[in-house]
């Protein structure tokens, strides 16, 4: 295993090509669940979990069912990738939610309640598709999934911090809420440009 590749994937997905503010994936929860730091953190943790799981499972489905070269059927079914991926993600999330709810109610309170939000989060499907596009291998896919989740969590929590502070500010009435959140996101995106073009 080439650790430097993994390192680059990690840095890339967290900072340089951050899923939210560089690739524009997962914006709905980014704006929706960033009012409070606590829920942002919970959401983030849940996303890390689901993204890692989704990366794993979709890579397996793709490799063994869909991709012509490696598939057990030996025919090209890549056109089914969207439908297969989203279906498995949706079911996976729903399944995990039910299991946690029963098995670990505490964990469910902390993380599980965010799970349903994640099905329709493009970041999850996005990471699965990107893994395929980038030709990542199994380990790389998983690492990329986790790193993307961490990157998502990072900006989500930072955003929540700023929004909590904005509660005390005199933001003009018409800019309150969503509009100002986008402006903050813009500021973050400008700041994160500092990571652009990073090479190791």
């Amino acid at each position, binding site marked *: 295993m080439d650790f430097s590749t993994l390192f680059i994937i990690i840095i890339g997905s967290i900072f340089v090509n951050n899923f939210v503010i560089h690739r524009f994936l997962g914006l709905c929860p980014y704006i929706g669940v960033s009012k409070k730091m606590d829920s942002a953190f919970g959401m983030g943790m849940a996303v890390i979990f689901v993204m890692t799981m989704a990366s794993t499972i979709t890579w397996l489905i793709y490799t063994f069912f869909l991709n012509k070269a490696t598939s057990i059927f030996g025919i090209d079914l890549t056109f089914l990738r969207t439908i297969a991926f989203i279906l498995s993600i949706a079911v996976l999330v729903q399944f995990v939610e039910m299991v946690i709810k029963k098995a670990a109610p505490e964990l469910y309170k902390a993380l599980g309640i965010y799970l349903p939000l994640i099905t329709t989060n493009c970041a999850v499907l996005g990471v699965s598709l990107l893994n395929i596009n980038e030709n990542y291998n199994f380990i790389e896919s998983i690492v990329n999934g986790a790193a993307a989740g961490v990157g998502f969590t990072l900006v989500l929590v930072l955003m929540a911090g700023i929004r909590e502070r904005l509660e005390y*500010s005199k*933001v003009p009435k018409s800019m309150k809420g969503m509009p100002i959140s986008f402006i903050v996101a813009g500021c973050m995106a400008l700041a994160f440009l*500092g990571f652009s073009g990073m090479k190791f």
Partner: protein
Amino acid sequence: MNLVNVSSSPHLHEQVNVRRVMWTVVIALLPALIAAYLFFGWRSILITILGVVAAVGTEALVQFLTKRPITISDGSAVVTGMLLAFNLPPLTPWWIPVVGSIFAITIGKQIFGGLGYNPVNPALLGRAFLMASWPIQMTTGWATKLANAGVATVSGLKQTLITGGNAQLQNLITSATPLNLAQQIRGDIVAGTAGDSARTIFHQLSSLDYIKELFWGNIGGCIGEVSAAALILGAAILVYKHYIEWRIPIGYIGTVAFLSWMVGGIDGLFSGPILFHIFSGGLILGAFFMATDMVTSPVTKNGRLIFGIGCGLLTVVIRTWGGYPEGVSYSILIMNIATPLIDKLTPQKTFGYRKKSNK
């Protein structure tokens, strides 16, 4: 008897207010402006004035339009305009500081409610915006002047270049600030594509003679960052007045010093040129005047230290591996964004605080 005043204690107050703080910062920035005039000529003053006028004008206009009290006399817009201009190359087009200031004040400050509410440093946000929008204008304005200054002061360096005969490298110096140069040379050396002359230049850059030039400001760079000496003079005023506190600048510069020593060299770990990294680029300006912007830095004491260290870390990372030669502005911006989080994670222990003792 006329009516007396009643208010809550304390009834004494230090002779300090927002206006005084801001105008003191303006004064503290003047030495650097004078230095810029000496090294770059009138144009640097013109750019600064344009930045300030645009910032103050925008602030007044926005406050007028939103029917808020007009507070331009508190001087914060002046500081913003000035610091924005200080981050521009001296020969940048005239409209760059104007557009930058407008953006800085509207999107960077007033939209959040004005002074005290902005999450990120307006001047740096303005600069980042300009950098993203017009990178050419933002990265080429110092070329000619540096060429002249370069001949006069970095003559030894130039000599090496000519005799070393590496045409590629010769081109570099005409268009880059010292940091840019160092980054590229280092990149080439690490990648193994540079000749011996590159190594010599790199060592030249970290020689004491050259550091002296850096310190006095005889090099290329942005308007405000050129003379470390003038900046330190101004910073001394702020430190003396207790308008800035040691944790951020010391944490910042200390971290940069350590990390650049660790990874910034060409002879393996712990060979980096420390002084070169401290005095080149906008580090002094950033550490004393921009990272210390109280509005956008943490309030807690430990938070401020962490903030400084974080800025230092990011600066070195960007300087060493990033797409930009200079990491100061971006690292401060990124840490600005993390400020509320830092504040939250570094609560202070009340005097006498103990972990729940059994009563």
